[in-house]
């Protein structure tokens, strides 16, 4: 079905007519009634196993009243401020502001990179920060990998974690069974994951966007279920343990003769390995970024973006969309696989638990929030999300709720993500960012 253009932002201003007090009260009461209906059974009542093992119902009307009250007040304020129309929170940056932001944006990247390089120096004695940094960088790399598929080629992949799993299990199996070193397995894992990407991509190329999404989801689940049930090979739910740790290009991080510390005349410290892992994942992520930026300038990268904008037009111009999609899948999968083998060597232990759909959704959320197609946006989104999770650690059970909410909210208010403008790769006289409202994603 053909969709119209997104309404131009200034229309929002005329629609935000406020309601008079009485009408606002009526709206709020209605909203509170709906909330009462929604929350009565699921929040107002709680089921728990009683002493006999049978389920017992206990009431929790205070929480229910709180929720309904919050909805009432929220709906009242909304009706007073915005009326019935959409909440007009800056749908896009004003046009005149865009160049200024773009200029500032040029310094964000180098600043972040400089900070990342300094983290191990600044926080050398803070193991927690280093571990968090490694985690964030892993997701930055995964986000950049998925960005090739979703952001550049416009193919929604809900099973990205499958390639991450392929990479992790490739390294774990090759190193524990054949004793291959990390540096040989790293490219091998990438190649194997890319191979799986092509294998999946080949049959599903004919599918349109949302069918493709569901098939990739099914594929991700199949991989996980096979890993879970093929006990002889993968150890099933117990996973694979004692995966070899990486060495400094052949020098293991051990105390005593022949170790990294001895070779460089340093005192042995377990932090060396953590710092090395930090720089390793930073380098891998930067390679991903660099390859993506270079690819965007190649004909294949241009074809990806053209396909995202309009697949039919793309075909009409003689671009082979089959190859274009396959390369996007393979590239994205390869970086996922490399990140996976890094994950395996860092953890030393992997199990199917790490490769559930929630991980795919998290990586997708990072790409979506960052602004599909924007490299710096993805990095910032990964930092904000994972950093945010750490800040609100006590609220651990709410974190998935928050990011589900963030996905919906971003789609409603900034459907192009936080960094929404697009940098043209070809321009005539001056380089101008394309503002969000003028960018329409194709129907491919």
């Amino acid at each position, binding site marked *: *079905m*053909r*969709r*119209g*253009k*997104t*309404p131009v932002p200034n229309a929002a201003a005329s629609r935000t007519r406020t309601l008079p007090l009485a009408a606002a009260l009526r709206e709020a009461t209605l909203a509170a009634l*709906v909330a009462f*209906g*929604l929350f009565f*059974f*699921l929040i107002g*009542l709680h*089921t728990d*196993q009683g002493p006999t093992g*049978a*389920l*017992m*119902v206990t009431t929790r009307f205070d929480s229910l009243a709180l929720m309904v009250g919050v909805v009432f007040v929220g709906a009242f304020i909304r009706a007073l401020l915005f009326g019935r129309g*959409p909440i007009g929170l800056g749908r896009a940056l004003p046009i005149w502001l865009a160049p200024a932001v773009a200029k500032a944006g040029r310094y964000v990247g180098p600043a972040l990179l400089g900070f990342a390089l300094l983290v191990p120096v600044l926080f050398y004695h803070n193991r927690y920060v280093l571990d968090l940094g490694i985690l964030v960088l892993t997701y930055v790399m995964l986000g950049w990998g998925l960005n090739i598929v979703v952001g550049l080629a*416009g193919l*929604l992949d809900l099973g990205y974690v499958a390639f991450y799993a392929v990479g992790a299990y490739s390294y774990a199996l090759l190193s524990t069974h054949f004793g291959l070193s990390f540096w040989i397995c790293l490219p091998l894992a990438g190649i194997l994951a890319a191979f799986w990407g092509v294998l999946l991509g080949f*049959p*599903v190329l*004919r599918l349109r*966007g*949302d*069918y493709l*999404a*569901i*098939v990739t*989801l*099914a*594929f991700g*689940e*199949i991989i996980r*279920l096979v890993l*879970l*049930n093929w006990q002889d090979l993968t150890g099933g739910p117990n996973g694979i343990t004692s995966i070899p740790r990486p060495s400094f290009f052949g020098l293991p991080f051990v105390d005593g003769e022949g170790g990294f510390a001895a070779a460089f005349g340093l005192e042995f410290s377990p932090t060396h390995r953590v710092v090395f892992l930090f720089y390793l994942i930073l380098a891998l992520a930067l390679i991903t970024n660099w390859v993506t930026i270079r690819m965007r300038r190649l004909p294949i990268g241009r074809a990806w973006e053209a396909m995202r904008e309009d697949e*039919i037009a793309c075909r009409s111009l003689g671009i082979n969309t089959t190859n274009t999609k396959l390369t996007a899948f393979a590239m994205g999968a390869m970086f996922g696989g490399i990140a996976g083998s890094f994950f395996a060597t860092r953890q030393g232990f992997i199990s199917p638990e790490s490769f559930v*759909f*929630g991980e795919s*959704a998290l990586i*997708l959320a990072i790409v*979506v929030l960052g602004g599909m197609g924007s490299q710096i946006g993805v990095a910032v989104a990964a930092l904000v999300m994972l950093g945010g999770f750490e800040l609100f650690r006590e609220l651990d*059970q*709410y974190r*998935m*709720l928050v*990011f*589900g*909410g*963030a*996905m*919906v909210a971003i*789609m*409603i208010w900034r*459907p192009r993500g936080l960094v929404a403008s697009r940098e043209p790769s070809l321009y005539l006289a001056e380089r101008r960012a394309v503002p969000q409202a003028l960018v*329409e994603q*194709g129907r491919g």
Partner: protein
Amino acid sequence: MEYFFQQLINGVTLGSIYGLIAIGYTMVYGIIGMINFAHGDIFMVGGFIALIAFLALVAIGVTAVPLALFLVLLLAMGLTALYGWTVERFAYRPLRHSYRLAPLISAIGMSIILQNYVQIAQGARVKPLPPLVEGGYTLLSKDDFVVQLSNVQIIVVVTTLILLAGFSWLVARTRLGRDMRACEQDLKMASLLGVDIDRTISLTFVIGAALASVAGIMYLLYYGVVDFYIGFVAGVKAFTAAVLGGIGSLPGAVLGGLLIGLIETFWSAYFSIEYKDVAAFSVLIVVLIFLPTGILGRPEVEKV
């Protein structure tokens, strides 16, 4: 042979549940062309509301099973329909004119919200319910193997049939059904001809959610457990059913549901129970590759 008959009965029961969920997918896809990813979780919410409503009814002294079941059915259908309405109103309606993947991403977000909301509100543990409806009929018995048709299975299949009949009547004979069919053919033209498309789409979600909640109740009766995660797997399988039957086609959704139920049951019975989900997901991939329009679907014409 007896074993085969028993599996056939089980498969049809399971297939009825999938069919009820699949209708929600197929209706929404037919009208606004989006995959309502949160639909499986609406089914889960329906199951939870039914469970809690039943326990609450027992707590206040309604212990007659038929009466309790009837009240639970009404409550769960009504409240789950409210969930369907709310989800559409908040997460999908503002995106109706956005780009194609936006509603899908929003729906994934909604699915995550619903799952975690139920997990936080009611706990992550599996919720067991003692069997409410017991007994059944022995259809065949040979040597030491008996073919059983339990009362629960009869309830599941009969309820599905009644709802399907009612729903087909609604689509074919009522004003709302006509509006729905008009919207399915051409949303813009329907709105030009005076069909209130916002209302029609809302009601489509409401009806889909109500049917999914019935599926939730049936699941609860049949398996006796619910947990916050059942919506994801059941949702993907029901979507597979909708695609297999031909997305947009109502009889197709039911047919697809039955086929998926049978495939899953027979796979577990004759091959391996661990890989039953793999079998269902593989069917999805194979169908989309070789039969993208499904069994009863119409080919979609791509227009520029």
